[in-house]
């Protein structure tokens, strides 16, 4: 029951993001959707992913987003049209139709027996630090990309450059 409730709330909060005119409310709605996703993950025993979702997506990204919103408040963001929000119900019907079609197709042709058998007795440690070590090398490089990327972009604000 809790599973269905959190899934439905997740979808509802995510759709609400489109409806809020104020970006801060939209951000809060997104954070709540993240919390719900973390509850879903938790119920399937994906505890570590749930914690990451909660602390990073619901926490860190919301903080980053809200601080960007508040630092850019004085710009010309006021006259956002309401049109996309009004169209949303029709779009949602369209999306749901497509969604049901795709999932029906998937459900019709996916077999339980087929496919590579899951290795029993795996836990997060030996998957993440064992099998997925290749990804971790990538993640280290990705963090460097993030650091150098943000440094590169933020040099626009440095004083020396302004005098050029």
């Amino acid at each position, binding site marked *: 029951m809790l599973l269905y409730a959190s899934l439905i709330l997740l979808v509802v909060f995510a759709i609400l993001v489109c409806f809020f005119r104020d970006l801060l409310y939209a951000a809060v709605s997104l954070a709540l959707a993240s919390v719900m996703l973390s509850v879903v993950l938790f119920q399937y025993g994906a505890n570590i992913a749930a914690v990451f979702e909660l602390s990073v997506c619901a926490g860190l990204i919301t903080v980053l987003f809200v601080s960007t919103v508040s630092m850019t408040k004085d710009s010309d963001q006021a006259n956002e049209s309401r049109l996309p929000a009004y169209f949303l119900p029709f779009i949602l019907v369209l999306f749901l139709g497509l969604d049901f079609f*795709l999932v029906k*197709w*998937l459900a*019709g*042709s*996916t*077999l339980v027996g*087929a*496919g*590579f*058998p*899951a290795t029993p007795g795996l836990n997060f440690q030996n998957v993440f*630090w*064992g*099998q*997925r*070590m*290749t*990804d971790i*090398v*990538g*993640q*280290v*490089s*990705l963090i*460097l*990309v*993030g650091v*150098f*990327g943000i*440094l*590169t*972009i933020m*040099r*626009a604000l440095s004083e*020396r*450059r302004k005098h*050029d």
Partner: protein
Amino acid sequence: MITNIGLLLLLPLAAVILMPWVSRLHRRAADVLAALTGLGLVALCLRFIPLHGETLTLRALHTQFAVDGLSLLFLVVVNVVAFFCLLYSIDYMNHYDGRGKFYALLLLMVLGLNGILLVRDLFSLYVYLEIVSIASYVLVAFNLKWDGIESALKYLLLSVVATGLILVGVGIIYLNLGTLEFAELKLMLAAGSGPSAVFLLAAALFIAGFGLKAAIMPFHAWLPDAHPSAPAPISAMLSGVVIKVAGIYALTRLFFDIYPSPDRILNVFLFLGVASMVGGALIAYFQRDIKRMFAYSSISQIGYILIGLGLGNALGLIGALFHVLNHALFKSLLFLNSGALQYRTHTRDMNEMGGLEHRMRVTGMTSIFGTLSIAGVPPFNGFWSKLFIILGALAAKQYAVAVLAIFLSIFTLGYFLLMQRRVFFGKLNLKWKDLKEVPLTMSLAMIFLAAQCLLVGIFFNEVLRYLVEPAAAILLGGK
């Protein structure tokens, strides 16, 4: 030999970590470090050539990276072009600030590209793809002018959707087959235990996702903005290498090596290829901005590659893979030429140029090499790959495609000669009376690339035997 695989990733990583300190030591130290790293990577790649299509796997510290014929061809392309771009940047970056950060991001991009080519797992491929993407968003916006930021955001918008589609595809593959490793997937799909209806859905997602990355015609909207706004060495990397590794390599790996595609998927490739080849060339003809023209012509040339893949026979595949190598060489050369022009004239508008032949001899001569190669004039490299693709089309009885490919090749020669006339010949615009040739390393990079266009054309037989045929053998393996 096996440890060399790891060095392909560790060398750029070490250089990037050292970069902030090194760039403080001396004004030129960062240049030296970046160029040496590039040279080292080229040397590492070339040492794999004697493998001749064998697969070499590195399993250390639980990682898994492998080189086979297909990845070797792309590795050589990536690292050779990257080295010349790094060499070119030494003088080109005098216009910009923050060169240490520039080199760091460019090297990380090369690391990501090498990673894409070395991994043997769909999800790892996504992780390394994301390294390349994020590095290229920032590099496109590197000058921090409005057009750079604008095209970076546009690129980002479409690219994020592309990676999203790819990941949903990965999810569907795992849902059906319970594994993401290439070797296991290949086994499962060959055994026929993967219901093919579901694979078609994943295939559609992958074609759309990697097609966006490769800027195939209906998915091309980001490329003509992103490539011109970037600094010239980055345009050369994006157009010469990134669209091929992130797009074409992934498509070939998925649809030929892992899953020998049925004809209906190949026909999609053929159709998209013809659309890109014709559409890209037609739009390129009307451009005034030299870099935009090159960008559209990249779309057109990607079309040739896709046609070769879509034909599905040996001649077509060899032509397509050879064209990957050739297009990387001549398109990066042409983008470096346009960068040289912009370096001196500060404009990209071809109508403002004219008569630069006598002012910038090296740029003029090398761009003639590039023009002849891209148009497929013998004995330059572009001729051979286009010849193979056209022969492949004839062998597959796709006569209309063959005729179109020949016609478009002549059309390409036409609009590139028009470019030559507007930029290098004709009356000298008096504004450019005192123009000088670009500095040494920029000239050197262009001369080397031009020489390679000619040498690959002359020694095409050796290139085919050592690089292209082992790669084509992998694509044909499933047939």
